[in-house]
């Protein structure tokens, strides 16, 4: 227990001082925390519950648009902000900016959660690859449809309110967003850690191991499935709101409903680190980000070849991820009594 606390506090301290240790990388590390959130929340469906979702990006995009929409719409006519590709300029005063931003963030969490609750009944009734493909369809459809809605800028996208003049400089802005991302990431992690230790976590795992048996035992699986999705949607939505503001520009298929990039990356990161574990997605996200940035610097022109090869290698040779691999080698360190069948069931992909 003591060692746990040392570990956690070491990492917490690192996270808190990172902006000062690496001042030039603030935005980079902020993106990394967002990736961690994406991986952690995906794992709720993918790793813990066995439902491989390719559509969690739906909530990311909804959160992004809602946050921006509220930030702008509270003080200015949204339609005018986005018309003609954003020709008119409106300036937020500092109190307006922060008020709008925080209310926007809250709604960015709530609205996707509501959406998840609403469509959950239909979508979560699908199993296996049908669920995967249906959610993929959702993600893509959302991106395309958002590209057709004039109010939010359609294909031309929407800019988010610029940082108010007079409140510090770009360094302060980067720090502000950095800490928000970090806090959100910690909150997500802590919440999930707690949740997995309750009955909720057990039910999710039961659904993964054998949904029919779980149902036969009298568990209302649908209820728990929906709750899981709602939780993911909440955190992912807020992450989306943050991301939209950090980038400063929202584009329907590339930034908001970025299915082909972040939508798939969140799956990869969780797998890389180890599906179904708590730390797996975190480690996976961090390593994935480092590798990706590394490739972009050293393999420019070939970066996707390198990334593609890496993905193939991970998926083919390390499907259990880093945590899974560690678990195999040092099961005692995980405090486990080895029950081969049980362990295989935990780390095997369904």
């Amino acid at each position, binding site marked *: 227990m003591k*060692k*746990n606390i*040392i*570990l956690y506090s*070491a*990492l917490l301290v*690192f996270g808190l001082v990172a902006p000062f240790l*690496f*001042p*030039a*990388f*603030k*935005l*980079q590390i902020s*993106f990394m925390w967002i990736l961690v959130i994406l991986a952690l929340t995906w794992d709720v469906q993918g790793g813990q519950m066995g439902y491989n979702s390719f559509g969690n990006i739906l909530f990311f995009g909804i959160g992004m648009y809602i946050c921006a929409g509220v930030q702008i719409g509270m003080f200015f006519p949204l339609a005018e902000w986005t018309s*003609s*590709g*954003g*020709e*008119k*300029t409106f300036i937020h005063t500092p109190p307006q900016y922060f008020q709008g931003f925080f209310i926007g963030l809250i709604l960015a969490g709530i609205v996707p959660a509501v959406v998840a609750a609403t469509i959950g009944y239909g979508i979560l009734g699908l199993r296996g690859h049908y669920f995967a493909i249906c959610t993929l369809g959702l993600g893509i459809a959302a991106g*395309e449809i958002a*590209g*057709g809605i004039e109010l939010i800028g*359609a*294909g*031309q*996208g929407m*800019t988010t309110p*610029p*940082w108010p003049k007079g409140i510090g400089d*770009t360094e302060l*802005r*980067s720090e502000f967003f950095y800490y928000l991302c970090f806090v959100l990431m910690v909150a997500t992690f802590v919440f999930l850690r707690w949740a997995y230790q309750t009955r909720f976590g057990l039910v999710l795992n039961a659904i993964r191991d054998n949904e029919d048996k779980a149902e036969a035992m009298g568990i209302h699986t649908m209820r728990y499935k929906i709750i899981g999705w709602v939780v993911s949607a909440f955190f992912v939505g807020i992450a989306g709101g943050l*991301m939209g503001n950090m*980038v*400063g*520009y929202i*584009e329907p*298929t*590339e*930034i908001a409903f*970025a299915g082909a*990039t972040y939508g798939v990356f969140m799956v990869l990161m969780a797998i890389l680190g180890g599906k179904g574990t708590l730390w797996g997605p975190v*480690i996976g996200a*961090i*390593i994935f980000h*480092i590798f990706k*940035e*590394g490739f*972009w*610097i050293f393999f*420019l*022109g070939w*970066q*996707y070849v390198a990334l593609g090869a890496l993905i193939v290698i991970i998926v083919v040779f390390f499907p259990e991820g880093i945590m899974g691999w*560690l678990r195999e080698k*040092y099961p005692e*360190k995980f405090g486990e009594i080895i029950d081969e069948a049980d362990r295989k069931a935990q780390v095997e992909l369904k």
Partner: protein
Amino acid sequence: MNKIIKFALVLLSTFGLILGTTSTSFSKVEGNKIILGAAVSLTGKYSTNGKHTQNGYNLAVKRINEMGGVKVGGKTYKFDIIYYDDESNSGRAAQLAERLIKQDGVKYMLGPYSSGLTKAIAPITEENKIPMVEANGASRSLFTKGYKYLFAVLSPANQYLEVAIDLAVEKNGGKGVKIAMAFEQDAFSQDVRLGIVDAAKRTGSKIIIDDKLPKELNDMAATLSKVRATKPDVLVVSGHSKGALTAIRQISEMKVDVPMLAMTHCDASKLAKQHGKKSEYALCAAQWHKSLSYKDKYFGNGMKYDKDFNAEYGYTPPYQAAESSAALLVWKDAFERANSTDTEKVRDALAKTDMQTFYGNIKFGSGGQNTAKPMVLFQVRCEGDKCENKVVAPTKWASAKLVHPVPKWSER
């Protein structure tokens, strides 16, 4: 748990190591080099034009360096550019702009390809007070935000095809015409569309088809049969290179007759070469054409630029390359007039730019747009199987007469 801690520490130190080694501190000026930063689309859907942009930048850097470099404060500097690949993705472009400025310490930026990506980068360069000379972001909305650090050498997007509408109206005896249009769903194409909408209002023309083409445009048969059914006077299509090629292919295959077909990206997509006679009579908007009579002391005139570019890269430069080269010329001029590498002084010098390049005249308005260069319109004309672009408007530079209305497919 020991192992976990060890593992975590190893992880963090690797992390730190990688970050440390990658934060090579380029500063704005290193030795005798002035370093500019650029995020261009080397991969992704804009890779075609991203390559044109990069080639344009590189040719200009080479030429300027060969011809004695940049003289500031009695010292001579050479230009150098740090490139990153934005993958045709706006989020990525924004990230890279941040990286160039914060991690690589770049103090002077060159623009990316496409309005969408420029829109993503502009807020960042503006906030960080880093001047950016961009050559491929034509969206009008870039110039209405009061940016002080953005300078665009190209004419704004909405001007692209306004000339075509004006021509059509002129040929119609001054009366309004019926317009059908199809635009891709990105920032640039939608801006061109706004220009048409304005032109329509101005000339009393009616827009009878207004289709938005999705980005993964592969087939526009539906739009074209709507066009055939409603018989407009002008068909306007803008969808980057893919849009131009698809449009010509399907218009010729479906034998859709329209008196005037106006498009963008004809030269970037090598339309005349790829489709040959099928592309004849298509009207194209261009920021520049080699036959125009502008000149400067680095590249001579358009014909010479065309020759040199061909010699270096093996293909005819589309205007995307030409305007990219012009951006470097603007930088050189600004550095020398400011006689300093201080960002603010250079920015002020940029704002006062008033020069002629082989690409055109450049003078920046209050929002950063180039107010001194009109768009040109050219028409694809064929002699036998060889097809070329010939300038037809403005009449000052026309090397061929506009053919209007375009002969029907049955007569070709």
